[in-house]
């Protein structure tokens, strides 16, 4: 009798366990638990990844990148970063002139924004949720109010260019469309005088700038055609237009003006809306926390730094999403993220690389490894000369073996020796847990058409013997004789940078007892201060792609005016970057012929190797960690974050 009861209990318990394992929590909601707060919802202000993650799901661009699906059951990497494979989004067709200076887009018809303007009985216009309208009520929508037109596209780009907040993303529109990187630079050229504060421009000056430089760059022709005119060819322009995570998002002109209070569209008033919040206070822009896009989700709630809730747009032109809600939950503490994910309260989790072993093999969890990435992070940069005044990292007085001479890295033998003293395999094993690859220059491997092959010709090999020989030759043997004491700093908490520095420390010191390397952590703000004042002999930082084109990497790494190369000291700038790279970088933008451009980027990679300008540290593959019930997760390395539209939850 008791045995029978025992069997029954066991069966019930087993059924319970199986049922529990199969139970999908929150079946119509996808939850991504991650960290890092978003700055804004304004696509023209946003230049951080976290904001891009929100904008990407609400707004849309003219064209989009094709994606593969990497989810619980599938690993389809058939994405593309090739501009010729771009797909229609809010534009159905497009043409580019043979000289690459005119782009014509045909706008999709019948597309509505999330909120539309309806006329009330008293004649005023009220903005209402388009989903809430019955077919009968839809007849009251004021023409153009919430309906996508070519005018909206023109307004969106013009608003972006005229807003141009300091430190924002708009250089990507201004540079190709006007030839100037900022509105200030454009104003200077247009007015023949420097105006730092464009709020002070007179209406006439504003009108001149708008009518002569901004308005002609993008024009609506009729209801459904938009034409972009560039002063000269800018090969990556179409890839810039494909970014709906920020600068190329399409807004509704009428909603922006009538509801949000954005630029009123007049040629002589725009300065009032220029550089909101001094480029820093995001709240000062009108679209800081309100959104009205054409995308598959509406912004339902943005609790800054806590969570973002998206609600399905039922009348989305591409058909409604399968899930009703998507949530981005910001949880800084890794243990919380892990436990929420384990409990099924999250479907996607952001995992620090060192914590990956904690999720591997967990029941109900799928980990995808070795996913392509589009960044160069980290890279170690040599500085020559280092600033001497007040610099505690190079020693005092004339160099006597203590500290380093300010132009320590001006000697190519030293730079090459450092490149060869880095144990690339050890870094891949220790830091990237085996999930990394070596690379040879500023052009990421993801650009297979521009990445030089065979790569072995340009990859630095870890070879301490050769490195020692080079150090003996450096400065005619002086360095080998006197020795040196080099300090490598990293920003505290950044483990990959610490380990990279320690690998160098161990290997450099093993060459000669007179070689001393000290690795030290400093707070981020101290690191930044030392970096921008050229006090660090060697700095380790990284770069993420703005748009998928090698040009976006060539400039910061090898142009004399680049973000990083510009900090590498006068010697490096004057003797290497200016004479050997600037022309090549310009040539890469002078032609739209991909084969020709590829040759230019091959040459840039070769010269980067020849002059040993940086240590190209191994790069990490991407990882994706999801619950086994999550399906339809799109993948393209240029996406700022998850695109929720194709996702759903089911066991298949």
């Amino acid at each position, binding site marked *: 009798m008791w045995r029978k009861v025992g069997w029954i209990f066991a069966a019930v318990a087993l059924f319970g366990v199986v049922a529990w394992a199969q139970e999908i929590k*929150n079946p119509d909601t996808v939850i991504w638990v991650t960290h890092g707060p978003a700055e804004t919802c304004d696509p023209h202000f946003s230049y951080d990844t976290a904001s891009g993650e929100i904008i990407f799901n609400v707004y849309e661009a003219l064209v989009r990148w094709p994606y593969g699906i990497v989810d619980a059951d599938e690993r389809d990497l058939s994405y593309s970063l090739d501009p010729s494979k771009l797909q229609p989004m809010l534009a159905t067709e497009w043409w580019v002139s043979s000289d690459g200076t005119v782009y014509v887009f045909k706008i999709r018809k019948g597309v509505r924004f999330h909120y539309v303007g309806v006329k009330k009985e008293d004649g005023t216009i009220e903005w209402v949720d388009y989903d809430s309208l019955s077919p009968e009520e839809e007849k009251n929508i004021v023409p153009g109010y919430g309906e996508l037109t070519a005018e909206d596209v023109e307004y969106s780009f013009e608003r972006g260019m005229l807003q141009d907040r300091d430190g924002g993303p708009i250089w990507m529109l201004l540079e190709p469309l006007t030839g100037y990187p900022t509105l200030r630079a454009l104003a200077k050229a247009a007015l023949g005088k420097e105006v730092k504060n464009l709020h002070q421009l007179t209406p006439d000056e504003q009108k001149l700038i708008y009518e002569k430089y901004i308005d002609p760059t993008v024009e609506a022709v009729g209801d459904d055609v938009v034409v972009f005119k560039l002063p000269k060819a800018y090969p990556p322009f179409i890839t810039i237009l494909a970014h709906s995570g920020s600068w190329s998002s399409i807004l509704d002109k009428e909603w922006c003006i009538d509801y949000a209070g954005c630029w009123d569209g007049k040629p002589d008033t725009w300065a009032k809306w220029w550089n909101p919040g001094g480029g820093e206070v995001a709240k000062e822009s009108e679209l800081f926390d309100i959104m009205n896009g054409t995308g598959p989700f509406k912004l339902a709630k943005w609790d800054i*730094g806590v969570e973002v809730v998206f609600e399905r747009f039922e009348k989305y032109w591409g058909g409604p999403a399968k899930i009703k809600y998507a949530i981005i939950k910001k949880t800084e*503490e890794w243990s919380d993220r892990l436990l929420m994910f384990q409990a099924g309260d999250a479907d996607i989790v952001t995992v620090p690389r060192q914590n990956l072993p904690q999720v591997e093999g967990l029941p109900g969890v799928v980990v995808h490894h070795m996913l392509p990435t589009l960044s160069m992070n980290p890279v170690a940069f040599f500085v020559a000369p280092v600033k001497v005044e007040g610099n505690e990292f190079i020693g005092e007085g004339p160099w006597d073996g203590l500290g380093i001479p300010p132009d320590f890295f001006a000697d190519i033998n030293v730079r090459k020796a450092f490149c060869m003293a880095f144990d690339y395999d050890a870094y891949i094993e220790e830091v990237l847990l085996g999930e990394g690859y070596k690379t040879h220059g500023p052009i990421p491997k993801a650009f297979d058409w521009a990445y030089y092959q065979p790569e072995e010709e340009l990859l630095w090999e870890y070879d301490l013997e050769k490195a020692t020989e080079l150090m003996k030759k450096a400065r005619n043997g002086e360095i080998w004789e006197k020795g040196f004491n080099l300090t490598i700093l990293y920003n505290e908490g950044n483990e990959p940078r610490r380990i990279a520095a320690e690998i160098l420390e161990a290997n450099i010191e093993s060459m000669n007892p007179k070689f001393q390397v000290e690795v030290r952590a400093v707070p981020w703000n101290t690191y930044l201060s030392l970096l921008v004042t050229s006090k660090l002999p060697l700095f380790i930082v990284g770069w993420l792609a703005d748009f998928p084109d090698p040009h976006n990497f060539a400039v910061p790494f090898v142009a004399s005016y680049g973000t990083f190369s510009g900090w590498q000291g006068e010697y490096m700038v004057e003797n290497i970057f200016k004479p050997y790279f600037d022309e090549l970088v310009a040539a890469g933008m002078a032609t739209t012929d991909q084969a020709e451009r590829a040759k230019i980027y091959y040459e840039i990679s070769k010269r980067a190797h020849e002059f040993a300008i940086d240590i190209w540290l191994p790069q990490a593959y991407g990882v994706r960690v999801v619950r086994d019930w999550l399906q339809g997760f799109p993948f393209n390395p240029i996406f700022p974050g998850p695109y929720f539209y194709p996702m759903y939850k089911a066991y298949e």
Partner: protein
Amino acid sequence: MVAYIIRRLLILPLVITGLFILIFGLYSLLDPYEKAGLYVRDITELKNRDINELIEQYGLNDPPWVQFFRWVSEVLHGNLGWSEVANRPVIDAFKRFLPQTVELALWSAIPIVLGGIWLGQLSAVKQNKPIDHASRVFAVVGWSLPTYVAGLLALFIFYGIFKWLPPGRLSTDVSLYVSLSGEFKMYTGIITLDAILNWNWWVFTDAARHLILPVLVLSYVSWALIMRVTRSSMLETLRQEYIMTARAKGLPEKVVIKRHARRNALLPVATIAGLTIAFLFNGLVITETIFDLPGLGRWAAEAARQFDIPSLLGYLLFNSFLIVIANLIVDILYAVIDPRVRLE
């Protein structure tokens, strides 16, 4: 009494000024580029931005006293500045984060004070008996246990293994209901209180379920102090002659303890309890972080880490006010509990 209260409140500006001078003194040690680190959290943010312009824009090169008086002038005009870490004005950050902190502090205060007193009394009455040893060990373990260890351990057991008590404020479905349905009205931002005002049992139980662990952890790590003060005070009181008189009169032991001993023993406890609750706000930094609760503590910790001066000063303003008020309340309570104490 009123004069006493006014006198004590007048201390507030002095305390605040001292704290601000201290913070600005430390701040002045940073160079302008280090100060700019608050606005450039990632190096790629300098892609198209001159850091020197940023320094000029925010006056980071100005002498500290200039920056100090600029800030004071703004405060006097009702503007506490922009919180870079919260991405909103400091005043808005308070509005957003205070309810969560108050909720946690309120719910924790009850078990901390009552539990500590009960444990202390139990320990004193059963002095040197097993229950005394056990309760002392129990409380001292809590006192010795760092909050983050206790919190993580509790979270691992009650959420990781048993899936009973999740972190955060609300479950997903309840959170969606509260924020999107339009049926739930937020009166105070304190979810449990709002749930009661909305007469919504479902939301209340869910919010309460999310509060159990942080409240327990905060209570456990705070009990030892109140317990020990109560215990020693109780022991001292129990040795007084009037207690012997009460016993000699033949009063039952329960009455002796409750009416005669405990009331007198609670005098020093009132001071400790008052300050414990005030300092609880500081202790919430770790608890809020571990249990994923968006409160003032978590915000202040992040502000300190990034040297977000407007946020830090705003938080200090609030904290100083809180501590001074807590001290005042304790003093007043003292007078109420013990008529011998005269504040005048």
